[in-house]
């Protein structure tokens, strides 16, 4: 059975060009870039090339890029860098819809005496800029707002956010793990202090990420050890991963236009096709202010994990914000923050596309989904005539 991979916000396939470029670093080019000999030094040149490529893709300077192991490490480093540099400031602003790589750090800092403001969203997942403005305080150490949401694809207005935050002289971090490669960046003109990205979300392998740190923004090392990354991130470099990340960012930059035309058109055809064919279906997130590859759709009266398993029978891969997929008991914190009713929240499916998806694949999904949802609805005791939203969780 052919795999129809529509879960690219979870991870992506390694692009063939990326794989080709990284392979020598598994075999003949295994030198340590920190070594004094030429054999290691040659590898070091490829790290420089990768840094240049990432910097070009982000629109920043190469010395503003630190290679890390993943987006999570980049997010964590930004938080610790900003808070350790300003020990007198004990307030942080973030949102209720961040990735756990940010939320869990914020909660850890809360347990260590920090006061954290979690900004809410409206029903389409958008932030209120007045709420952001009002939340800022003289002792605010950091504002951390994701560039685009991983579940709904909703894009936050970073230029406007940066204007508000920087006007108060406060440090700004953005988790751009889902945005890099899908929207164009020019960090030289966007005054964020820290930006996190991850390789495996843009067709590089897992195990590599990067943190942008603006020149002049405070930085304290999170990983202590050797002098790698100019002493800012110790540990022997993942040379294969870094080389791959450089190539992947270069490719992503080249494909930005296709991402915003072909991928978007494919996504829209899938989304509109599903909503038209299946009654009691809704889109989660703003219809326009959204990543071009992401569609989060809820099917009323059915549960997400059951839908995913049925889809798996057709070889279709996607994700769900259903509680049952994670072992937690509450559906997605993002959907709940948006006030998505329980009747829909449990039955949410996230389709996330890439440039490798095709029209034929979308056709297959459009053919498979309606009978699949119908079958699960037949099993359900909840029917269309039961319109009342059940009582909300009291917690």
């Amino acid at each position, binding site marked *: 059975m052919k795999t129809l991979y529509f879960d690219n916000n979870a991870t992506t396939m390694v692009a063939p060009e990326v794989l080709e470029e990284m392979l020598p670093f598994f075999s003949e080019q295994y030198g340590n870039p920190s070594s004094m000999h030429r054999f290691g030094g040659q590898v070091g040149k490829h790290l420089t090339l990768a840094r240049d490529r990432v910097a070009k893709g982000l629109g920043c300077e190469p010395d503003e890029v630190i290679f890390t192991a993943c987006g999570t490490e980049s997010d964590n480093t930004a938080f610790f860098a900003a808070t350790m540099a300003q020990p007198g400031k004990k307030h942080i602003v973030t949102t209720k819809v961040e990735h756990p790589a940010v939320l869990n750090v914020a909660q850890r800092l809360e347990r260590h005496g920090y006061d954290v403001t979690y900004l809410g969203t409206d029903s389409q997942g958008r932030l209120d800029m007045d709420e952001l403005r009002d939340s800022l305080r003289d002792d605010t150490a950091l504002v951390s707002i994701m560039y685009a949401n991983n579940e709904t694809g909703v894009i936050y207005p970073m230029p406007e956010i940066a204007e508000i935050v920087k006007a108060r002289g406060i440090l700004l971090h953005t988790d751009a793990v889902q945005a890099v490669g899908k929207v164009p960046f020019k960090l030289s003109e966007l005054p964020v202090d820290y930006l996190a990205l991850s390789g495996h979300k843009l067709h590089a392998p897992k195990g590599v990420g990067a943190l942008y740190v603006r020149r002049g923004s405070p930085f304290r090392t999170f990983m202590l050890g050797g002098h790698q990354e100019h002493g800012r991130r110790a540990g022997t470099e993942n040379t294969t991963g870094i080389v791959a990340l450089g190539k992947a960012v270069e490719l992503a930059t080249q494909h930005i236009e296709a991402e915003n035309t072909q991928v978007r058109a494919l996504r829209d055809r899938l989304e509109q096709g599903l909503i038209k064919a299946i009654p009691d279906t809704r889109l989660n997130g703003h219809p326009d202010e959204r990543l071009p590859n992401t569609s989060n759709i809820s099917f009323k*009266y*059915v*549960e997400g*994990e*059951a839908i*995913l*398993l*049925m889809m*798996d*029978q057709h070889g279709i891969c996607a994700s769900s914000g*259903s*509680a*049952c997929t994670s*072992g*937690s*008991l*509450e*559906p997605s914190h993002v959907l709940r923050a948006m006030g998505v009713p*329980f*009747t829909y929240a*449990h039955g949410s499916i996230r389709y996330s596309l890439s440039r490798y998806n095709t029209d034929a694949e979308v056709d297959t999904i459009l053919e498979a989904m309606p009978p699949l949802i119908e079958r699960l609805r*037949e*099993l*359900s*005791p*909840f029917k269309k005539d039961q319109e009342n*939203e*059940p*009582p*909300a*969780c*009291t*917690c």
Partner: protein
Amino acid sequence: MWEYTDKVRELFLNPKNAGEIPDANAVGEVGSLACGDALKLFLKIDDDGVIEDAKFQTFGCASAIASSSALTEMLKGMPVEDAEKITNKEIAAYLGGLPKEKMHCSVMGQEALEACLLDYRGEEAPEKITEGEIVCHCFGVTDVAIRRAVEENGITTLEDITNFTKAGGGCGDCHEKLEEILFDVLGKKREVKVEAKPLTNIQRMQKVMQVIDEVIRPSLKQDGGDIELVDLDGTDVIVSLRGACGSCPSAKLTLNDFVQKTLREQVEPDIRVREASS
């Protein structure tokens, strides 16, 4: 993705007995959309008290649908007095097991069956089901339901209370109360954990034996394993894992994450568990 057994997959993809029985003489309903799973069970019981037919409607995940289908298969042709004795463990066993995080699906089956049989007898199902004081307000779980789940399933941790009953899976405000119920049922008051006076060797030996017999062994036996206390050397407890646990590749995890953790919590924080060398 969860590791489901073939039986769970089969009954999810091709559920048996799905639908309604229009002339059912027993209907039981549990769960809600807010909770993420719900089951409506229909029984047709003949004049001799034998279940002629059983059908279900389920909103929920694969294990909820499979548990419902399994339950109806088990019930068909069964006298009511035997049906009364069906437990969630039997539903899970019929499926070849469920991931522990999904055991609440089997509990939902047992509760729906109870509601059904109360309906059959003309009793008020909702009152019976919500008997007791609600401890977990997020999921409306009572102390009675929690105590029963702990007793019937050999539960020894707060995490498993959530896995089996959903209680504590929301805001977490009830965790302290859940722990109190757990320790109360296990006969171990929370004070044991913070006992200031050091135990004598005899006291330690007695408590270790008691916790192994009452808490650790029943839990291991559920997985086909067992444990033997070999010796005590100060706060070092030397044990030997038996049965399925003895040959399990995760034996070290069992010793550290379950046996040692439980003994530290319920006997003395300094206890170190070692496996006897063979």
